[in-house]
């Protein structure tokens, strides 16, 4: 498949897949809590409804940041699925996330500002592990390019078990799932945990939601790279990790930021970097 076709498929399919996954997530979570849960298409209904709402802001420029958050998130995913350099993908992802953080800072309410700071802490927590994942994949395959990594004949998870586990840990943070939903929880039980999105409403909130769909598809695509040599196993593995993340979300309580940061760095250091050290000794 040419990179342009993959790019096109991603642009069209990612929000659909992302939305369906979000709906599935809500149903499974509900069943785990012995509830019936919303219909599968509920996230789409939500976004459509948000889109028609009045735009209310605290600061007049705050929504511009969100627009660029969405644009850059789409761009990042596009880079990944077109097969670009993984490091470049990470940097673009960071840039996108920074726009969200700056937007929340700009909104200037204590809750969104606090959420933005916590989001930054979360970024600082997962960034090393994500970079180590790219480095590990490079060491295993000799390339930073996503399409060359995907074409590697052997499944990477065999060479990078530690990096794989560490990456799942980073995914927990990236998905903003419990125990790492410091900056913005999906459950609206207190204003503090709505954090970063507190002051966004209407279309801005819809854009944040869609950006998350794109982001989740990107992250699951990255996860798939670990099994890319065996596509069916890859799909199954990715689905299993997705279920695992939901399970963890429902089982664990929220961690404090100190614990989140310390544990994420410890995991990156021990599992991720340990794996890389071992690999550099073997190769």
């Amino acid at each position, binding site marked *: 498949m040419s990179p342009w076709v993959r790019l096109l498929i991603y642009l069209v399919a990612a929000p659909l897949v992302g939305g369906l996954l979000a709906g599935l997530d809500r149903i499974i979570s509900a069943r785990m809590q012995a509830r019936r849960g919303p219909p599968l298409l509920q996230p789409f209904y939500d976004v459509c409804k948000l889109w028609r709402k009045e735009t209310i802001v605290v600061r*007049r420029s705050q929504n511009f940041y969100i627009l660029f958050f969405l644009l850059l998130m789409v761009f990042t995913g596009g880079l990944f699925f077109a097969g670009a350099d993984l490091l470049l993908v990470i940097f673009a992802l960071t840039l996108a996330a920074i726009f969200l953080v700056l937007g929340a800072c700009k909104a200037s309410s204590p809750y969104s500002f606090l959420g933005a700071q916590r989001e930054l802490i979360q970024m600082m927590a997962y960034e090393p592990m994500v970079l180590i994942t790219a480095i590990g994949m490079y060491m295993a395959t000799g390339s930073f390019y996503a399409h060359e990594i995907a074409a590697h004949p052997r499944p990477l998870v065999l060479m990078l078990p530690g990096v794989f586990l560490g990456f799942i840990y980073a995914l927990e943070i990236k998905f903003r799932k419990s125990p790492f939903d410091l900056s913005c929880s999906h459950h609206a039980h207190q204003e503090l945990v709505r954090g970063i999105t507190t002051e966004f409403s209407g279309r801005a909130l819809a854009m944040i939601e869609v950006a998350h769909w794109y982001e989740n598809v990107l992250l699951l695509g990255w996860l798939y790279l670990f099994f890319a040599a065996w596509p069916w196993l890859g799909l199954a593995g990715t689905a299993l990790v997705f279920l695992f993340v939901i399970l963890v979300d429902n089982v664990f309580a929220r961690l404090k930021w100190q614990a989140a940061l310390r544990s994420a760095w410890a995991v990156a250091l021990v599992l991720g970097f340990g794996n890389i050290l071992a690999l550099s000794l073997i190769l």
Partner: protein
Amino acid sequence: MAVTLVPSMIVGPLATGLGLLCLRPDYWRRVLVVAGALLVVVGSLLLAHWPANGGMAAALGPGHWINAVMLASEFILALALARVGWRAGRPLVVGLALAQAALMGWFEWRFGKELSVVQNLFVDKFSVIMGLINGVVGGGICLYALAYMREYHEAHHREAADRRPLFFALLFIFMGAMFGVIFANNLIWLYFFWEVTTVCSFLLIGYRGDALSRRNALQALTMNLAGGLCFALGIVWLHHTTRSVELQTLLRSHESALLIPAALFCLAGLTKSAQLPFCGWLLGAMVAPTPVSALLHSSAMVKAGVYLVLRLAPVLNGSAVGLGVALVGAVTFLYGSLAAIRVNDAKKVLAYSTVANLGLIVLCGGLGTAEALWAGLLLIVFHAVAKCLLFLCVGVVEHRLHTRDIEAMSGLILNMPRVAVLMLVGMAGMFLAPFGMLISKWAVLKAVVDVYPMLTVFLVFGSAATLFFWVKWMGKLLEVVHPPEPAEKGIRSGQWLALYSLAGLTFLTCLFFPFISLRFIEPYVVDLYGRTATMGIGNYIIMTIMMLLVTLFPLSFLNYGRNVKVMDPYLGGANLAGHAAYRGWTGRTREVALCNYQMVLLVDEDRLTHWSTVVGVALLVTIALVACL
């Protein structure tokens, strides 16, 4: 033309400096400073048209009287420094200054007659890049300093003695000496200019004249004199092995015996570029007026240190000494990035970030591969421009807000919109894709993975920390709680000129960095290694698209305030007038204040500094042992 241009780039600023020292009237000083700064900028731009790479030498003849003048000035400086050390009760300064003078005096007396130097000066693409940075950024700083120093004495520091003639003289002498460091091939000349930068920085750091400034200036002097002694030892050792005192001899030969002088030169470079365990002096140098900080941090001084280390890259490549130097750089990067999280003083954050980025450059020099050298050269260019811009912005803000506390910069985007935007550009230039520093960091990461994968651990954790402290600061500038109080009046045209041109440079160097790389950096790397690193055309295109996307962002402000309904923020209580306060559930009125996370519990600046220094000393001892074995 070229043959006279290079010496005049060195002599011109030195002469301007001496002229400024004698010139008392305020008006004429301003004229001379502007003219001098413009000449330096024009001169360095002319240099950029230097045709050949490498080979061209400015043959000056044996130049005996110049050598004699330099030697005499060296002795005078050493005696003056020894006197300073004696008066301040610092035996170490006295010892180091006298030891250097004695060593170089003995060397000249013993071998001076038989020294034959073919090329005293040398120009290649690397020195042209450094010359451009020194000239353009340094010239901008001088323009900025005119207005800044007037405010400094007339409004903000009335207690400090007004020694502006000395101040501007030192700025120009500093620049001239920096050109000397860059273009010298004769190591004895290089050493002379090296010492002049040490003395200038000592005098400039201590400019304010209070106890703290004097102490920090002496600290800087001590560390740099120790580096100077290493340099002198390196010259003697090099001459002992090769019978030559030319830099090119050292670079073009591949004998393992040359590792000891190379290690000594590296040590000198590490002190000057404020690497662990020597970073104390650069952090202390914050007490100086802001133009001095900008000069020390971006174009001169620390860049002299990394210049030397990067020069030695081909010698260090693959050696144990190189690995040691790379480790020092990597540890310093991690240390600087982590320490910057904890501090609130804007200048200190910038200082730590400088230390960290210099660590990256030193890491590149220590690796010494073609890819690493390419990345290191890019880092020097991007860092100089963006860091200078940030320092100058902070200087302006400090004079308006009377504080350097980042927490006090809340609402700056409304109070000082233009400065705030320029600052945001500078910060984006320091760490954000697709701007320059990020491109270089990426290149460093790739260079490191291929040679020593274990060094990546310092990079990944360090860059995560970098991200945190920069975005935290950016958010602080954007956030607005209180109604705006415009504070931008009174910034003079010279300052605006410097700020705008540096911001323009930050942007343009990023947009045109493929050309900079193609024109200056790649030829130099190819000349040394026969191959070079680049980024791949696809990645260039992606970076350019990202750049365009980011530049579209300001366009969205055309839509400012349209189709939105403005409401008060949610404060968890009843909002009071101006929504800067609210009545909470206990019935008490509370003010709204937004503060950044400081991570007090995780990072302790003093403990971090202590342990990093221990690691730095251990690494230096290891390098010394490895070099001797």
